[in-house]
């Protein structure tokens, strides 16, 4: 038995289409994570830049050995304490430069942690000494 539909073909209301598309758009907007690269920025010295002689009292040397121990101005210092120490020194002398020196077998993460500490202390002048 057939039921006649004598009212013609019914139309789907297309007004809600916009809502559906919006919903999709918002869903993807929220769920997409654009992976932004983050890291510590540093400017390397140019190859043939002249060597600037630093006055000793404007230079703080930081040595990192293979075990990740840090010598801060000739004094063994734990890495998390570098930021506070460096900040104090910068407050007294804003021309201060930090020279970070590593050994060949020093691990990269120790180096990054030290740089991070210096950045946190607000150090602007950081130089990288070549390992011997």
């Amino acid at each position, binding site marked *: 038995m057939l039921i006649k539909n004598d009212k013609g073909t019914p139309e789907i209301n297309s007004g809600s289409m916009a809502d559906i598309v919006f919903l999709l758009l918002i869903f993807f907007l929220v769920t997409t994570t654009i992976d*932004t690269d*983050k890291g*510590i920025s540093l400017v*390397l010295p140019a190859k043939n830049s002249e060597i600037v002689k630093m006055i000793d009292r404007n230079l703080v040397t930081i040595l990192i050995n293979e075990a990740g121990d840090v010598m801060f101005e000739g004094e063994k210092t734990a890495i998390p304490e570098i930021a506070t120490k460096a900040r104090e020194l910068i407050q007294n002398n804003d021309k201060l430069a930090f020279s970070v020196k590593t050994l*060949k*077998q020093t691990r*990269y*993460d120790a180096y990054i942690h030290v740089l991070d500490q210096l950045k*946190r202390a607000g150090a602007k002048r950081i130089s990288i000494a070549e390992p011997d």
Partner: protein
Amino acid sequence: MQFKKKAQAGSGISTASMPDIIFMLLIFFMVCTVIKSSSGLNVILPDAQKIEKLPGKRGVGVIWADRAGNLTIDDRFLNPNDISGVIYQKAIDLTSPLKIVSLKIDNQVAMERVTQIHEELREVGEAALNVNYSAKTAAD
């Protein structure tokens, strides 16, 4: 004096073209988005707190170094001595000249290797001196 109201003529804006506009926006963003095409090496990045974002992906050269001693740029394995050549090619590229070099180095890599990379970048000159040591945010 009062204006007469308009007659029944429907004055609402038709919303039927709304989906088209939104689709167009969607397609615009799909086309403009640059999806990273090289997959890189398997590295565990060091963590840091005072980190800065890189400005987009254009003009960024990425050097990968893993703990096994491999070095890659754009998924090509290289000898340390070849870095300067490849980076130089990127520096003179006219469509997206190199502005910054992102170093994705495993946290266990020895500084000897890092210094080697520094030296190679200094060979290239000005364009390659801005480096960014990729790091992940420290939990604190």
